[in-house]
């Protein structure tokens, strides 16, 4: 018989919720730093795209700010990749590896698990994104002219809350997928980089494409950040920073509420249909 230590501190309510968030964020923040090789890959892949696209701009004689647009866009791809592979697909992976049923059987609230994933993913990805920006700025001598730092921080935080809210919402949807999950996440890379203007100002896309792409918080977040960071940014913005900030705030609320509702629904559905432990390879 296993001689397990006695549980001395039982948490309930908000304390349990908080401990769940910390517990799920821990492997992402601390655990990932122990496996440092991941940092190389997480910085390497966005940097390859950044360097390639910067050289295209150099070859066609683009204004110097465009190099900065690419570096910033490349850094933001880290967050999008984290949303796809570390949030949306996460519950699907947990199901594949058998952890999901343990989560559900434990007293930890699933919303806390999702929030922990989001907080941990955000912190860990931030380190990589900063790495891309530093490396890109040093390599290509990017010049920034930050006009309003507090607004920049606010926009970044709003973008991240809305983005990770979207990730929490989609993770519930992916829960019901099988092999499609991998392919869907794979599909949501280049097309999103295109319509969200990761490597060029969003203004140059057709209006309705940009409007639809604005449902992805990084689209407007990136557009606002470019307006606040680069000298030519304000002339190349899609909407004004104020309007984009309000839209991002609205998206954040909608996605987080939707995440909670969808999670409850999907959990009930998955339990009813017996798909929580289903593993269709």
């Amino acid at each position, binding site marked *: 018989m296993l001689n397990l230590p006695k549980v001395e501190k039982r948490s309930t309510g908000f304390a349990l919720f908080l401990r769940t968030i910390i517990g799920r964020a821990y492997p992402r923040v601390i655990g990932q730093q122990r496996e440092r090789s991941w940092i190389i*890959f997480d910085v390497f892949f966005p940097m390859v795209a950044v360097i390639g696209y910067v050289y295209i*701009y150099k070859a066609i004689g683009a204004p110097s700010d465009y190099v900065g647009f690419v570096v910033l866009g490349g850094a933001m791809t880290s967050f999008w990749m984290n949303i796809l592979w570390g949030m949306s697909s996460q519950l699907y992976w947990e199901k594949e590896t058998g952890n999901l049923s343990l989560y559900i059987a434990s007293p930890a609230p699933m919303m806390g698990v999702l929030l922990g994933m989001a907080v941990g993913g955000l912190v860990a990805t931030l380190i990589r994104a900063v790495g891309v920006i530093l490396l890109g700025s040093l390599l290509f001598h990017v010049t920034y002219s930050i006009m309003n730092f507090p607004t920049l921080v606010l926009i970044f935080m709003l973008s991240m809350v809305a983005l990770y809210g979207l990730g929490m919402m989609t993770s519930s949807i992916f829960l019901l997928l099988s092999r499609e999950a991998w392919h869907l996440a794979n599909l949501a890379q280049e097309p999103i980089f295109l319509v969200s203007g990761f*490597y*060029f100002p969003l203004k140059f896309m057709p209006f309705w494409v940009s409007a639809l792409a604005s449902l992805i918080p990084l689209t407007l977040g990136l557009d606002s950040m470019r307006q606040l960071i680069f000298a030519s940014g304000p002339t190349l913005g899609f909407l004004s920073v104020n309007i984009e900030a309000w839209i991002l705030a609205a998206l954040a609320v909608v996605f987080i509420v939707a995440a909670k509702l969808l999670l409850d629904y999907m959990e009930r559905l998955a339990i009813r249909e017996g798909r929580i432990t289903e593993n269709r390879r």
Partner: protein
Amino acid sequence: MAERQAAQVPSNIVRRSFAIATWLGWKIESNWTDPFLFAVYSVIKPLAGAAIIVVMYSVVASGNFDTPYFAFLYFGNAFYQYVSSVITGVSWSIVDDREHYRTLKYLYVAPIRFQYYLLGRGVARILAGTFAVIITIAGGVLFLHVPLNFAQVDWLLFSVSFVLGIVVLIYMGLVLAGVTLMLAHHSDVVGDAVASAMFLFSGAIFPLSYLPAFIRPIGYALPVTYWLELLRRSIIGSSVESFSSFGSLTNLELLSILLGFTLLFGLFSNAIFRACERRAKEKGLIDQITNY
């Protein structure tokens, strides 16, 4: 005597290994959804990748696509899709069969020739890559005035270079498969990492002269660089010369270098794979499941 008999693998085993693996690979790649969605999936991703570059170019060049650099960029990017398709196509099944389906150990005790099985598993991705390249080029010709005059294409040069390039990519995929066998961590990103690195160093989307001088030799040491140069020369002819990384070399000289690379990889890739395989067996990695 017995050793010699064992070394001579009957051709029907080679054929069977390749054919069954091809069928299996195609099923795995495509049967997760209905054929229509699979076709859409296969088209959207490469087209979006090409469209990013097109929009970037268009923003700065004010929509003037009628320049030699755009043709250089477009064809380089389009054909480069083969590199990741072929390389990861051949090496990915190691990860898939070991970690995901957990069948690698059974494959090793089955009466198949494993290298041909790997090649067969890669065919589906190579076919998808071919589809993507055709769609990308057709889109460019139809909507962006990418210059493609069938009468002016040097078909002989194109065909020979194309085949040599695909063969050398398959050999590179085999080497990567061997390396993947020995890795516990990051085995799933090895193919993409190599393909991404070569994207920068091979002059796929910009001339090598834009790279710092100390990095350029990496590009010259890659067969892909010569392959892309030959494909561009065969399709768009002299207009590529202003962006050429090998202005002083003739087509024949470039072809000879590519042939040399193909022979070199042909000679060593199987030996490298065998050595990696032996090492993986010694270390008990064939059936290792890491859940990494």
